[in-house]
C-alpha cells in the first residue's frame, strides 16, 4: 500500500541507487557523533578538484571516490543540483566544506566513514531585551525511542539546539516566535506550533518506512525511480492477522488486485489467491512465490479444483505453511507484466515476494513475541438445521410414506432413530405388536435428544505461537536467527497441530566489496485430523450427475455436525457412547474420531547462499543458490475396532444379516465362484496408509548489474541474469489392510486382501516421480533522463522440460517495455510545495505460462493389464494416455498497464491507480476431436481470453498530531475476464457444481443452473426447458447447455478493503473491513424426494409442499410416496429432484462485506519498560473474521459462509478468532 515516491530528503552518495542506510543506523551515527567526540579520530584528507564547476551531488561523489567518505546531507537545506565553484587543485576536506557550506547555516562533522552535514546550531541564543521563555521537550521516533542529536530550530531564525542523549532539549525562545522546526536525517521534518506550550513531545517519523525507496524484484533491488511497473509493498507488521499462520490469508483486502478466497481454515490448506484474476483457464492460476530471492516451488502441485476438494493432498497445498509470519519483514506483490517479466513464464499470474527480517549493525536485539488465539465453538443458531422435534416429524412422514420400515432398515447402510427401532423390533427386543407404548417411549427419547453436535465435537480452540529472535551485528557481519513454535490444541476433538520453525541468517562482509549471506529456513509440522478418505467420484471428485463431492469415509466433525440428525445421540441415558448404524456397522463419531485419524508430518529445509560482489559503484555481480528438501508424510490410521475397519467386514461376522452381506459393496466376491458368498478383505485388523511426498529442489540465479552514468543527466541500469531450476518430486504410497494397532503395530494382511489385489491388478505400494528442469536468461535495461523520464525493457528466454521432450515446445521468449514520467520533476510542478510525487507509468509486456499440458510428445505409460479371472494371464501393457501434439506451446499474454502514483501534502495522502488490459492467447484448453486419432479430448493451445481491470489504493493520514494520528487506507480492484475462444465444454453436471466451468464469452469459472419453474401439483419441481416449456426432465449428461442458463461467475470481480487505524500515544486501534463482490455461490442443500432418518435436514423443510395447492405458496418440494419408484415417470422425477439442487433457485449472490479484523495494540512507554530491563514491549488484542457485515443474499446463505466450500474431508469453515499478543525486546 505504501507505494510512494522515492525520498527527496536523503541522498547517500555512494553511487548505488539501491543502497540506503536504514534509519536506525543513521540514528546510531548521530549518537556517536555527539557523544563520542573524544574518540573522534580525524584524519587529514585531501581532495583533488579537477573540474571547477560541479553540482553538490557530483562533488560529494568525488569526495567518496577519493577519500572513501560518504557525505550524508539533507536535501532541504542543500540542494544536490546546486552548482559549486571550486578552485582547481588539491585542497583539504576542511577547506572544501568551508567553501561548499559557506552562507548556508550548515556545519559538518566527521564520523568514521561519514561526513554528516547538519544545521549550524546557534546554541542558546540571547537576543537583546526581548522577553524569553524556555521550551523543554523530548524527541522520540515512532517506536517511542528517544532520538539524540536532533536539530531543533526556531522557524525563521538562527536560534536552535540539538537534543541530548535522552532526546531531550531545552531552548530559550523569544516572545512571538511560536514555531519549532524539528529535523533529523532520515526523518521527516516537523513544524510544531508551541503557542501556549512549554513542554512538548515530538514524534519524528522515519521517511523510509512511509516511502519505500526500492522495489525488490528478487533479482535486484531497483530504485523506485527506475522502476516502471506495478508493485505493492506491505509491511508484515501492518497486515498480520493473529492466529492465521498462513501469510496468504493476511493479504485479503490489503493489496489492490489481489483476491484471496479462504475455502478452508484447516492448517496447511492454501486459500485461492489470484493476482489480477486468472490468466490461465486450466493451468496454474496462483502467483509465483519468491522468498528472499529464491523461487518457492510447490511441494505438491495441487490444482485449483483440488483445493476445494477436501482431499488429503490439500493439507500440503500451501507452499508457505512452513513460514513463520514473525520472521517476515515485508511482502511485495508484483502484478503487471512489466514488473513480473523478469520471472518469465511462471509470472503470468503475478509474483509475491517475501523478504524475511535481517540483522542490523549495532546492539544485540533479542525479541520475543507470542500470540494466543482462541476460536469459539460454532453454534446451531448460526445454521439452518432442524431441531430434533421437527426432525422426528419428518421421520414419521418418511415412515408413513413407506421409505422407512422393518424391511428397508434391515439392509439400510445407515440408521437413525427409526432404523434403530426397527432393528430392535426385528430382533424381538421391542414389542410393537401388542401396543404402541414401547415404541412411542422409544422414539420419545430421541425426539427430545436435540443433540448439540457442535458441543460434542468442538471445543474452544487455543492456538499459541511463540517466536524468539536474536539479531545484531558488527562492522563486518550481521545476523538474524529465530525459533518459532506453534501449537494448536485443536478446534475439534480430532485435530491438533505443532509446528517448529527456525530461520538462521547471517550476512558477512568478507571485504568491503564482497558480501556473503547464508540462510537456513527450517520447519517441521506435526498435524492430526479426523480420518477421511479421498473423494471417490469420476470427474475430479465430483459426482457428474449431482455435482456433489462424495467420499466413502468422512469423519469431518463439521460435516458430521451439519449433516447428522439431532435425533441421534452421542451418549445414551446411562452416559455411555451410543452407537447407530453407519456403513452397515455401529458408529459413534466420538468413538470413531478416537480410532480413525489422519496425520501429517512435514519436514521442510531450505539452505541458501547469496553472494554479492561489487567491483565498483557501477558494477556488481550477484549469485543466489538454494537447495530445498521437503518431505511430507500423510498417514491414515484406522484402528482395528473402528467403524471403517468394521465396515469392511459387515455382513461376514457372526449374527450379521444376510442382507448386509449381499449389499455391502466393500465385501469381496471371488471371481467365478458360484456360491455368491462374499468375503471380507479385512477380516481382522485395521488399516494403515501412508503417502509420502518429497521434493528436492536446487536453484541458482546469477546476475550482473551494471549501472553506468553518462554525463550528468543520463543514468542507466542493466541486469544480465540467468536462472536454473532443478526439481525432483516423488510420491510414494503404501496401503496396509490388516494392521493391528493394539498388538504393537503388527501387520498381517489377509489372504483375501492379497488375492483381491492380484485379481484387480492393484498394488499395495507405489511410486511416481516427476522431474522439472528449467533454465532462463534475461536482460533488463533501464534508462533515465534526469529522473524525469525513465524507460525500461526486459527480454527473457527460457526453457522447460515440462511440456515433454520436444525441442520446439520447450522454449519461450518474453519481453516487456515500459516508461515512466515523473511529473513532479518537471519545472512547472517542481515548485508546488504540496506535491510530492506524480508519476505516470505505462508498460506493455508479453509473458507466458507453462500451462498444464505435457503432451508435446506422446504420453505412454505402462500398467498391468486387468485380468480378473486369470491374474496369471496379466501382462504389462502400455497405454497411450495422450497423443502427441507437436504444436504445443506456452500460454501467452499481452498486457498493457497504465498507472499513476500521486503523493501530496508531505505524503499525507497517496494514491496509486492502475488500469490494465490483457489479451491471453494460446491458452491451454481441451479440444474435442473427432475421436479418430484415438483420444476424444486433447489438450492444446486452443483458448483465448481478454481481461481488464482497475486497481486503486489510497492511503492517507487525515489527522496527524504529536499524540494522535489517524491513518486510513482503501483498496479497490475490479477484474473482468472473458474467454474469447474455447473449443470444449464440460458436461452440464460439473458445470452446475462448485467447480464450475470455463465459459465462452464469460469467466474462467462460471456456473450454470437449471431454470426453476416452481412445483407441480404433486410438489415435484418443474423447470423451463429450452422452449420455455415446464418439464421435469432435462438432460444433464451432455455438453449441450441449451436447457440451462449461465448464472454467474464463481470468482469475485470486485475486491475491496477499508483499513483504519487510530494511534494515540502508545495505543493503536485498527480495523479492516474487506469485501468481495460480483460472484455467485451454489448453496449447499440436500433436497430430495426422500430422506433417511439419520441425516440432518434444513429448516426450509418446514415449508415443504404437503398438500395440493401448496405449490402456490412454497418452493420446497414434497417428500414423495415410496410408490413413486414404481411409476413410469420415475426417471423424470428423480431427475427433477437432482435438477432442483442445480437450479437458479439455489444459487446465491455471494457478495459480502466482512469485518475481517479489529485490533488494539499498546506500546508500553520506553521509560516504563526500561526500568525492568527491556528495550521495548507491546501488547495487543485482535479479533479476526468477527462478522459478516453485509451479505447480498442472506436468505439463501443463511448459516453458510460465502467463502467456505462445503466439501467435507479436510475442510473446516472460516472461524471467528481472538488473538492476544505480546512482544518484548531485550
Amino acid at each position, binding site marked *: 500500500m505504501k507505494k510512494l515516491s522515492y525520498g527527496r530528503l536523503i541522498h547517500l552518495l555512494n553511487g548505488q541507487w539501491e543502497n540506503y542506510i536504514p534509519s536506525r543506523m543513521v540514528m546510531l551515527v548521530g549518537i556517536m557523533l555527539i557523544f563520542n567526540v573524544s574518540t573522534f579520530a580525524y584524519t587529514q584528507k585531501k581532495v583533488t578538484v579537477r573540474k571547477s564547476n560541479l553540482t553538490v551531488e557530483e562533488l560529494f561523489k568525488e569526495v567518496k571516490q577519493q577519500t572513501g567518505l560518504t557525505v550524508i546531507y539533507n536535501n532541504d537545506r542543500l540542494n544536490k543540483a546546486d552548482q559549486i565553484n571550486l578552485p582547481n587543485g588539491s585542497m583539504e576536506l576542511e577547506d572544501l566544506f568551508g567553501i561548499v557550506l559557506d552562507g548556508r547555516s550548515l556545519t559538518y562533522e566527521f564520523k568514521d566513514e561519514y561526513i554528516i552535514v547538519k544545521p549550524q546550531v546557534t546554541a542558546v541564543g540571547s537576543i537583546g531585551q526581548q522577553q524569553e521563555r524556555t521550551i523543554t521537550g523530548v524527541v522520540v521516533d515512532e517506536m517511542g525511542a528517544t532520538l539524540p542529536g536532533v536539530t531543533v530550530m526556531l522557524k525563521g531564525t538562527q536560534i536552535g539546539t540539538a537534543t541530548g542523549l535522552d532526546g531531550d532539549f531545552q531552548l530559550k525562545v523569544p516572545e512571538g516566535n511560536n514555531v519549532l522546526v524539528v529535523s533529523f536525517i532520515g526523518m521527516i521534518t516537523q513544524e510544531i506550533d508551541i503557542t501556549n506550550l512549554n513542554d512538548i513531545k515530538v514524534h519524528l517519523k522515519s521517511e523510509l518506512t512511509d516511502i519505500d525507496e526500492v522495489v525488490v524484484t528478487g533479482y535486484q533491488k531497483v530504485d523506485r525511480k527506475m522502476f516502471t511497473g506495478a508493485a505493492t509493498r506491505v509491511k508484515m507488521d501492518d497486515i498480520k492477522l493473529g492466529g492465521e499462520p498462513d501469510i496468504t490469508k493476511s493479504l485479503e483486502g490489503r493489496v489492490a488486485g489481489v483476491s484471496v478466497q479462504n475455502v478452508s481454515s484447516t492448517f496447511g490448506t492454501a486459500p485461492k489467491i489470484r493476482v489480477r484474476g486468472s490468466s490461465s483457464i486450466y493451468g496454474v492460476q496462483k502467483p509465483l512465490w519468491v522468498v528472499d530471492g529464491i523461487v518457492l516451488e510447490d511441494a505438491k502441485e495441487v490444482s485449483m479444483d483440488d483445493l476445494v476438494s477436501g482431499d488429503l493432498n490439500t493439507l500440503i497445498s500451501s507452499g508457505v505453511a512452513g513460514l513463520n509470519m514473525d520472521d517476515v519483514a515485508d511482502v511485495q506483490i508484483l502484478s503487471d507484466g512489466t514488473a513480473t517479466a523478469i520471472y518469465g513464464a511462471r509470472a503470468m499470474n503475478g509474483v509475491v515476494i517475501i523478504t524475511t527480517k535481517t540483522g542490523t549493525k549495532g546492539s544485540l536485539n533479542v525479541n520475543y513475541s507470542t500470540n494466543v488465539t482462541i476460536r469459539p465453538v460454532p453454534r446451531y443458531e448460526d445454521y439452518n438445521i432442524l431441531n430434533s422435534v421437527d426432525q422426528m416429524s419428518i421421520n414419521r412422514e418418511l415412515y408413513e410414506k413407506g421409505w422407512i420400515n422393518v424391511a428397508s432398515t434391515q439392509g439400510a447402510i445407515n440408521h437413525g432413530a427409526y432404523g434403530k427401532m426397527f432393528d430392535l423390533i426385528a430382533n424381538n427386543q421391542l414389542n410393537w405388536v401388542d401396543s404402541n407404548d414401547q415404541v412411542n417411549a422409544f422414539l420419545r427419547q430421541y425426539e427430545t435428544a436435540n443433540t448439540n453436535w457442535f458441543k460434542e465435537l468442538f471445543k474452544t480452540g487455543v492456538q499459541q505461537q511463540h517466536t524468539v529472535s536474536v539479531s545484531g551485528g558488527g562492522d563486518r557481519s550481521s545476523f538474524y536467527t529465530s525459533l518459532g513454535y506453534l501449537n494448536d490444541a485443536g478446534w475439534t476433538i480430532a485435530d491438533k497441530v505443532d509446528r517448529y520453525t527456525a530461520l538462521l541468517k547471517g550476512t558477512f562482509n568478507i571485504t568491503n566489496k564482497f558480501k556473503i549471506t547464508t540462510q537456513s529456513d527450517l520447519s517441521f509440522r506435526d498435524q492430526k485430523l479426523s480420518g477421511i478418505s479421498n473423494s471417490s467420484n469420476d470427474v475430479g471428485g465430483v459426482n457428474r450427475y449431482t455435482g456433489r463431492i462424495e467420499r466413502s469415509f468422512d469423519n469431518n466433525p463439521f460435516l458430521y455436525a451439519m449433516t447428522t440428525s439431532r435425533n441421534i445421540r452421542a451418549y445414551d441415558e446411562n452416559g455411555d457412547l451410543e452407537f447407530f448404524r453407519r456403513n452397515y456397522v455401529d458408529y459413534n463419531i466420538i468413538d470413531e474420531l478416537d480410532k480413525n485419524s489422519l496425520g501429517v508430518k512435514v519436514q521442510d529445509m531450505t539452505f541458501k547462499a547469496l553472494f554479492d560482489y561489487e567491483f565498483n559503484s557501477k558494477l556488481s*555481480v550477484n549469485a543466489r543458490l538454494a537447495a530445498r528438501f521437503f518431505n511430507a508424510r500423510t498417514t491414515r490410521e484406522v484402528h482395528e475396532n473402528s467403524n471403517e475397519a468394521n465396515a469392511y467386514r459387515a455382513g461376514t461376522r457372526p449374527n450379521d444379516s444376510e442382507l448386509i452381506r449381499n449389499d455391502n*459393496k466393500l465385501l469381496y*466376491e471371488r*471371481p*467365478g*465362484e*458360484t456360491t455368491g458368498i462374499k468375503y471380507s478383505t479385512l477380516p481382522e485388523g485395521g488399516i494403515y496408509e501412508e503417502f509420502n511426498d518429497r521434493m528436492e529442489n536446487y536453484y541458482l540465479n546469477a546476475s*550482473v548489474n551494471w549501472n553506468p552514468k553518462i554525463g550528468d543527466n543520463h543514468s542507466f541500469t542493466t541486469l544480465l541474469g*540467468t536462472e*536454473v531450476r532443478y526439481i525432483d518430486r516423488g510420491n510414494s504410497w503404501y496401503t496396509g489392510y490388516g494392521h493391528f494397532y493394539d498388538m504393537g503395530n503388527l501387520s498381517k494382511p489377509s489372504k483375501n486382501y492379497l488375492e483381491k489385489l492380484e*485379481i484387480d491388478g492393484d498394488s499395495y505400494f507405489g511410486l511416481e516421480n516427476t*522431474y522439472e*528442469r*528449467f*533454465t532462463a*536468461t534475461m536482460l533488463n535495461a533501464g534508462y533515465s533522463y534526469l529522473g524525469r523520464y525513465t524507460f525500461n525493457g526486459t527480454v527473457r*528466454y527460457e*526453457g522447460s*522440460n*515440462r*511440456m*515433454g521432450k520436444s525441442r520446439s515446445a*520447450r522454449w519461450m521468449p518474453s519481453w516487456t517495455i515500459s516508461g515512466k514520467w515523473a511529473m513532479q520533476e518537471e519545472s512547472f510542478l517542481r515548485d508546488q510545495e504540496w506535491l510530492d510525487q506524480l508519476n505516470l507509468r505505462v508498460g506493455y509486456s508479453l509473458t507466458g505460462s507453462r500451462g498444464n499440458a505435457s503432451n508435446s*510428445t*506422446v*504420453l*505412454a*505409460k505402462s*500398467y498391468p*493389464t*486387468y*485380468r*480378473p*479371472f*486369470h491374474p496369471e*494371464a496379466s501382462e504389462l*501393457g*502400455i*497405454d*497411450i494416455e495422450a*497423443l502427441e*501434439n*507437436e504444436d504445443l506451446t506456452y500460454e501467452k499474454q499481452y498486457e498493457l498497464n497504465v498507472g499513476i502514483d500521486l503523493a501530496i501534502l508531505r505524503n499525507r495522502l497517496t494514491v496509486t491507480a492502475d488500469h490494465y488490459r490483457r489479451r491471453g492467447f494460446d491458452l491451454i484448453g481441451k479440444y*474435442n*476431436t*473427432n*475421436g*479418430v*486419432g*484415438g*483420444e*476424444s479430448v*486433447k489438450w*492444446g493451445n486452443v483458448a483465448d481470453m481478454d481481461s481488464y481491470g482497475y486497481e486503486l489504493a489510497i492511503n492517507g493520514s487525515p489527522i496527524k498530531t504529536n499524540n494522535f494520528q489517524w491513518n486510513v487506507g482503501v483498496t479497490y480492484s475490479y477484474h473482468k475476464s472473458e474467454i474469447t475462444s474455447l473449443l470444449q465444454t464440460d458436461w452440464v453436471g460439473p458445470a452446475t457444481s462448485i467447480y464450475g466451468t470455463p465459459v465462452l464469452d464469460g469467466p474462467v469459472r462460471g456456473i450454470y443452473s437449471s431454470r426453476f419453474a416452481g412445483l407441480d401439483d404433486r410438489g415435484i419441481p418443474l423447470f423451463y426447458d429450452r422452449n420455455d416449456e415446464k418439464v421435469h426432465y432435462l*438432460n444433464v*449428461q*451432455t*455438453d449441450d447447455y441449451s436447457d440451462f442458463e449461465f448464472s454467474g461467475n464463481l470468482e469475485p470481480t470486485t475486491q475491496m478493503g477499508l483499513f483504519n487505524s487510530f494511534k494515540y500515544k502508545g495505543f493503536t486501534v485498527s480495523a479492516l473491513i474487506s469485501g468481495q463482490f460480483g460472484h455467485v455461490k451454489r448453496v449447499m442443500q440436500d433436497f430430495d424426494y426422500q430422506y433417511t432418518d439419520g441425516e440432518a435436514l434444513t429448516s426450509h423443510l418446514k415449508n415443504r409442499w404437503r398438500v395440493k395447492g401448496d405449490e402456490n405458496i412454497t418452493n420446497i418440494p414434497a417428500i414423495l410416496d415410496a410408490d413413486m419408484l*414404481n411409476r413410469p415417470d420415475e*426417471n423424470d422425477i428423480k431427475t427433477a429432484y437432482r435438477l432442483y439442487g442445480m437450479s437458479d433457485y439455489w444459487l446465491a449472490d455471494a457478495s459480502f462485506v466482512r469485518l475481517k479484523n479489529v485490533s488494539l495494540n499498546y506500546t508500553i512507554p520506553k521509560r516504563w519498560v526500561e526500568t525492568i530491563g527491556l528495550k521495548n514491549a507491546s501488547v495487543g488484542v485482535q479479533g479476526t473474521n468477527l462478522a459478516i457485515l453485509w451479505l447480498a443474499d442472506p436468505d439463501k446463505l443463511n448459516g453458510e459462509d460465502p467463502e467456505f466450500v462445503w466439501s467435507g474431508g479436510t475442510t473446516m469453515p472460516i472461524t471467528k478468532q481472538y488473538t492476544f499478543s505480546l512482544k518484548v525486546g531485550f
Partner: protein
Amino acid sequence: MKNYKIYLALIPVLSLLFTGCSDFLDQAPDERLEINTLTKVESTIIGSYQNNRGYRFTHFSTDNVTLAQKVYTNDEIIEDLYTWNRTFRNQKHQDSPSEFWTASYGSISQINHALEALEEISIPVADQGKASAIRGEALVMRSYCHFMLVNLFAKHYDPATAGSDLGVPYVFKPETKLKVNYDRETVAATYQLAEKDLLDGIKLLEENFEYVTKNKYRFTFPSVYNYASRFYTFRNNGEEDVAMAIKYGEKAIDAYGGVDRMRKWKEYQSDEFGPVDIYQPEVGMVQRSRSWLPFNWVYQMTNGIRDEYLYDNPFGNNDDRFTIYWIKKGDVFIPSYYFVYEPGFSEASAHDLFPLSEAIFNAAEGYIRQNDFVKAKELLEVIGGNVYPGYNPAQLTTDLLKTHYNVEDENSAWTSYLLFERRNQYLMKGMRWFDLKRYDIDVTHKLQDGTEIKLSEIAPNKDFQIPLYAISTGMQPNK
C-alpha cells in the same frame, strides 16, 4: 584499462552460469515411456485390447428387448439405444456407440504407435521371428477394429452399393497434431483395407507361428481365423468370400481342436469361470467390458421374449441355455453364462468374443450359402448337441425346418434355423444386431406410452450415427 580487464574476466564466469544447455532439458517430466524396445512394442499392442468398451450395447437395439412389466427404471442411454435415436443424449456413456468409436480408434492408435516404433527399432536376428509375429498380431487387431467400426457405423456391405456407401476412416499412423480431420472411406474401401491388414497379418503369424502368443486375452490362432471367417461371412461378396468364410471357419475349428471341443452348456455350472475359462480349448478371446446390460431396465429382455421366441426351437425341446438365470425385477429375463460377472462390479463382466461356436456357425453359414445342407447340418448338430437335453441329431431335417419356419425354400429354412441358433447362442453379446443387419430383419419396439416404433422407419440402414463430436469437426454424418 583496468576496468576492461574486469569485464573480460567476467565472460568465462558468466558463460558458466548461463547454462542453457539442452541436455539438461531433455529429462522427461514424468514416468512416460518411449516405445523403443520390442518388449515395449508388444506392451503397446497388449494395451490395444479394449477392456472397457464392447459392442454388447447393441442388445437394446435388437428384437431381444421389449417393454418390460413392473419395471420402471429408465436411463437416457437405454432409451436412446432402444429407440435407435440418431443423436444420443449421452455421447460419453460406456454403452454409447460414440464411446465404442473412440475406444476402437484408441486401439488403432495404440497399434499404429506400436507399428511405427517397430519400424524404428533395430531388432537382433534372434528376435526377428518374434517381431514378425507381433507385427502380424498388430495388423490383425487393426483390421478387426476397423471392421467392427464399419459394421456399426455404416450400412451393411452391399456389393451393389459398397463402392459409394460411407465407410469409416482407415487410420495407418499416429496423430501428431492437435486437429486432424479425416474423410470417411467407402464401405468397400474400408473392407478392402481391413482385408489387406488381415491377410498380411495372418501370413506373418503363420510364418512365425511359434512366436504367436497363447494368451487368450489377445489374438491367438483360433481367434485370428475365427475373426477372418466372421470377416468373410459378413462381407459375403460373391462365391470367393463364401469360400474364404468356410476356409477360415474350418481352419479356426481345427485350431480350437475340432468341433468336439465345444462344451455342453451345462458344464458351465461346474466350471469356476464358465465360458471365459481360458484353459478351455473352446474359448477364443476373452474381453472384459463395462456395460449396463443386465440391469432391471424398463426396456429389457423379458420372459415374454423367451417364451415367444427363444423357446421356439424346431424340436420342441427344452433349452439348457435358459434354465439358469438371474432373479430380476418384474419379468426381466437375464440368463446366466452368456457372460461372467466380475466380482464386486455389477456393470463389469467378461465374455468370449470368439468362441468355437462362432467358427462353427460361420462355416455352417458358408455351406448353407453354397446350398451344401449336409455339411451345414453336420456342424449345426454340434450346437444342438451341446444345448438341448436329450438332443437327437436325426431330428434336424430340412423338412422339419421348412415346416417350422413355414417356408418352401430349403435355403431359407436352414438360414432361419441358423439365425435362430445364433440368436440363442449369443444373447446379450451384441451379435443379434449384426444378424438383423445382414439379413435385413425389421424390428418393432413398444414404448412406455404404448406406441410402437419400427427400425426400418427410423434407421433403415441399421447404422448408428457417428459421434456428434466427429460431426462437429466436419465429418460427414450418416443419413
